[in-house]
């Protein structure tokens, strides 16, 4: 876990450019700021979200700055979206659309329904402990065996230090399962690859929001006002990429209309 955090901090410091990478709302760290702790550039609404459960992945109008150079997480999110877009280009839309759906469901269920998941898993663990490990059904005193099984520590934490790690583990497993399950779809053509890349970038963004908000607990990922470094790249490459995508879609869609001279037939 610590290695992950250190790696991400290093990556953030590499992709963020000191000085001009400061988010619009963020201030450079001063002597009063505590070095070593992520600081949240304070927007007035930050307190409400900060008071929520740690690692709940809430998204609000704040920007996280990492200690040291004031880098923001927007660039990491963009990088994750770009990596997933490359994967999506090879997998195609038929695989990526169900994958996005599965990712969104996993995000919502794990974020909002964690208490239920923890209760069910822990109940299952106690039952397993009772039936298999302690052979409680055949025991002379099943009541005592159940009491012992029930007194076992919970397998999945509902709160505390292990919460974020357990959530990330479950989310990663779900993601792997979803990606493996969607592999069976047919190989994509060019237009499906393009759509797959766009859809997968959304998947990457969701994965980034989920993971980064848990790796750096103070992180409040801002969907609508990314930091200056990310915004710089979005403004520089976004419109061009969008126009190239539209041009490609027009040409591919035009080709998909079929051979020249066909009569109009619209579904």
């Amino acid at each position, binding site marked *: 876990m610590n290695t992950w955090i250190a790696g991400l901090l290093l990556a953030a410091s590499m992709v963020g450019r000191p000085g001009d990478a400061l988010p619009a709302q963020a201030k450079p760290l001063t002597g009063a700021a505590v070095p070593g702790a992520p600081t949240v550039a304070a927007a007035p609404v930050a307190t409400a979200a900060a008071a929520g459960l740690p690692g709940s992945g809430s998204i609000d109008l704040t920007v996280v700055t990492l200690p040291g150079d004031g880098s923001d997480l927007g660039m990491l999110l963009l990088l994750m979206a770009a990596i997933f877009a490359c994967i999506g280009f090879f997998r195609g839309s038929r695989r990526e659309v169900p994958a996005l759906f599965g990712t969104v469901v996993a995000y919502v269920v794990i974020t909002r329904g964690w208490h239920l998941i923890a209760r069910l898993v822990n109940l299952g663990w106690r039952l397993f402990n009772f039936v298999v490990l302690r052979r409680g059904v055949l025991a002379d005193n099943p009541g005592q065996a159940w009491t012992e099984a029930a007194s076992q520590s919970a397998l999945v934490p509902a709160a505390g230090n292990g919460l974020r790690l357990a959530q990330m583990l479950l989310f990663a497993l779900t993601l792997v399962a979803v990606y493996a399950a969607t592999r069976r779809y047919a190989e994509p053509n060019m*237009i499906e690859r393009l759509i797959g890349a766009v859809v997968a970038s959304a998947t990457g963004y969701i994965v980034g929001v989920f993971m980064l908000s848990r790796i750096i607990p103070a992180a409040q990922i801002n969907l609508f*006002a990314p930091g200056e470094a990310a*915004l710089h790249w979005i403004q520089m490459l976004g419109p061009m990429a969008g126009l190239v995508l*539209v041009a490609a879609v027009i040409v591919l869609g035009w080709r998909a209309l079929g051979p020249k001279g*066909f009569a109009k037939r*619209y*579904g």
Partner: protein
Amino acid sequence: MVPIETYMLTLWLIFAIVGIARRFPLELGATIGFVAMLFFFHLAGGLLQTVATKVNSILAFSTDLNLVYLVTYTSVIIAIVTMVYAGETFVYAGTWPPSPLSGRAIDLVIALFNGWLVVGTWWYYMDLFNYPQSLFGQYQAPLSNMALRLVALTPFAVIPAEHRTWILGMALLGLLFLKVRR
């Protein structure tokens, strides 16, 4: 008062819904009209403003020239949207969709693109003329940060002024070439 970006995004989504209903072959035809509109504004925008000024001096419509310009541009945009959406104009022949999912995705992309062309151009001119509709209480300054960012993504703001002629000209020629080929 509803923020102007909410209003514009809603209008954009309406274009998207209409475009999805009309499908790609019809929407791509509308794209020709909208790109031609942008090309016309780029090349003859000054002339349009001169004509609007002269007409205003005769009719004494308003003392605020910015309002006159915005009304003129808005009228042209509405006229072109009506022309390209009314009836089957510039329809690309062929079979559609290639597959349900990719067909819908292409419909959506082109519909959003058309919405961006129309709504973005209108908003660009609103911003250029400093929101003269505020005279009627239809706009209240200042713009939010999000609105400022969105205005910077409108077509004329995205396409550099020095490259507009060839970019819009090539786009129009390309679309017409695709139409002629079909």
